[in-house]
């Protein structure tokens, strides 16, 4: 038990937690923005894959790291636009369209990767983002090294939480997003263009998800490989429910989830071969389901989630 207590108090553990949490924070925020506007985006897994590839590809071709992030965001926004056009003006099933977008995003990424690197056994790496120690703050014991010696995308993810929260609750645009997700007919009566707001929200949310994917190739693994998103997108969807569609709780959920993930990695080393390693790998997924069960009881879904809205059509 002493070992576990030491672990939970160590800076390296919390530094790892924040690193693991970064793609979840960005993905969950992105999904949250889509869902707040009333659009379920099951394309997230494919959008993250495409973001991971696009960002890596840009840097591999010689672009700067931040350009890579921008390229990833643009690729994600484009794929998000496809999902938005199919689900918002056309009102197609958000479930099925999302699955289609995921299949397209992943298969297109794999195809492009194979085209770029026809015969490579070990994926080539790029020079990734380096950790940046914030002056003064990083000298605080424990918290300093954990919180303030991360790579820039982790800081960006934390900033994105604040930004999304501010936009959603303090700006007219945020009000419009929340209104079209709750009651599009009322929003329309207020002169809000429901279609435009929903499409805009899905495009922006998808860009965030794609940056979450790009974190994996530009900050964590330095390379692109198949199946690299590995269900992270789906877990983000569970985390949105856990967060009750609130950005602050999304951060909390992502960090708790990542802490659990970092914990099981360490626990694996401590417990060793007493349990098959697959048991530990299952835990995050089981935990997600458990979180869904607990939170779904009082989940306050955006009321127009998954309900298409066509101007002038009665509901």
């Amino acid at each position, binding site marked *: 038990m002493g070992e576990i207590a030491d672990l939970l108090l160590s800076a390296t553990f919390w530094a790892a937690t924040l690193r693991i949490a970064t793609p979840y924070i960005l993905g969950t925020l992105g999904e949250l923005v889509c869902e707040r506007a009333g659009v379920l985006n*099951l394309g997230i897994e494919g959008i993250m894959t495409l973001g991971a590839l696009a960002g890596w590809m840009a840097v591999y071709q010689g672009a700067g790291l931040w350009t890579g992030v921008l390229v990833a965001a643009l690729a994600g926004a484009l794929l998000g636009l*496809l999902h938005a056009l*199919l689900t918002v*003006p*056309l*009102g*197609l*099933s958000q*479930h*099925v*369209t999302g*699955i*289609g*977008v995921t*299949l*397209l995003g*992943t*298969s*297109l990424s*794999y*195809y492009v990767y*194979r*085209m770029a690197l*026809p015969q490579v056994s070990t994926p080539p790496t790029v020079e990734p983002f380096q950790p940046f120690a914030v002056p003064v703050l990083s000298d605080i014991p424990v918290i300093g090294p954990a919180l303030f010696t991360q790579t820039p995308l982790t800081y960006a993810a934390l900033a994105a939480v604040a930004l999304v929260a501010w936009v959603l609750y303090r700006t007219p645009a945020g009000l419009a997003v929340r209104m079209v997700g709750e009651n599009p007919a009322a929003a329309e009566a207020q002169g809000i263009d429901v279609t435009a707001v929903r499409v805009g929200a899905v495009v922006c949310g998808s860009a965030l998800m794609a940056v979450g994917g790009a974190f994996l190739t530009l900050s964590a693994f330095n390379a692109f490989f198949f199946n690299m998103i590995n*269900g992270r997108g*789906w*877990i983000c*969807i*569970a985390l949105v*429910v856990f967060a009750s569609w609130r950005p602050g709780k999304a951060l909390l959920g992502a960090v708790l989830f990542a802490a659990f993930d970092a914990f099981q990695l360490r626990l694996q080393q401590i417990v060793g071969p007493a349990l*098959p390693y*697959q*048991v530990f*790998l*299952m835990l995050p*997924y*089981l935990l*997600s*389901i458990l979180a*869904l*069960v607990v939170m*779904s*009881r009082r*989940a306050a879904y955006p009321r127009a989630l998954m309900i298409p809205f*066509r101007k002038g059509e009665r509901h």
Partner: protein
Amino acid sequence: MLFEPRAHPSAALRLLAPAGAVVAALALCAALIAWTGTGVGEAYALLFQGALGSRFALAETLTRATPLMLTGLAAAVAFRAKLWNIGAEGQLYAGALVAVILGGGMLDLPGWALLPAALLGGALAGSALLVGPTVLKTRLGVDEVVTTLLLNFIVLLFVSMMLEGPLKDPMGMGWPQSAPVLPEAELPRLLERSRLHAGLVLALVAAVALWIMNTRTTWGYEIKAVGANPAAAGFAGIPVNRVMLKVAVLSGGLAGLAGAAEIAGLRGYLTLDLSPGFGYSGIVVAMLAQLHPLGVIAASVFVAAVFVGADAMSRTVAVPNYIAEVLVAVSLLCVLVSSFLVRYRIRRSP
């Protein structure tokens, strides 16, 4: 631009729409093929040749279509009731796992009982895996999309654990694979010198049975009513939750059967690469078929042909075989759009 509902889309339109969508998908993917420097016409000709151009190719395509037909039916029956079962991949592996255990003779069953036990056990395992999320959905309002998806990962890890643990074949040279099933638990071959097996017959029978259920029985009507409007169905006296559970048993069972049939008919033993995403492709198959059981037969042959043909093509020319997945994904999106165009006509704004 305005969308105006068509009151009665003609039958011709409804039949032509998916075909048009597939043509559109082929045209869109031509750009990706042209990028490789291979002639588009040549590539598609090779793909067609590799999928349907010979007795061998045709048998391979039908072999590949068999599990897709079953997972496609699994998705079609669930989606009709708006039960969003995205977990067919996990249900398939659960079915395969149970089939390998029962077919391997771990229970002391008489020889004649091995095959039925493996198939039925596999189907039940798939059912069981979907019943859980369905109960969570109907009782607690937990979204089944996420739970069934996450279960896919859990089941695969569980299978991996079994293959490296209790089910590991001592003769497997250290590979994580199970011991093969006994010869009595194998499905017969349909065609000499091919891998085509009687699983295809099972899938075809299942498709026809589901079609009859949909069109001729109270069950089919209830499922349709629950899918169309659960509140109204409940008001009309249909036990919505019970219908959902029946659908879950059917849908999960079909996906589980897909796994069991792959074991009994094709592989004989279980590995972690049993399915190259048959569960997910099944969703595409169901959508291409517009959730129609007989349409699933055609759609699964189409999707299988794309995969088998793309494999053959990529052996000859420099087009990566991932083109198959892109083609299938683009086809799905095109079919969605075409289904919209069947239901609505586009009018310029007044």
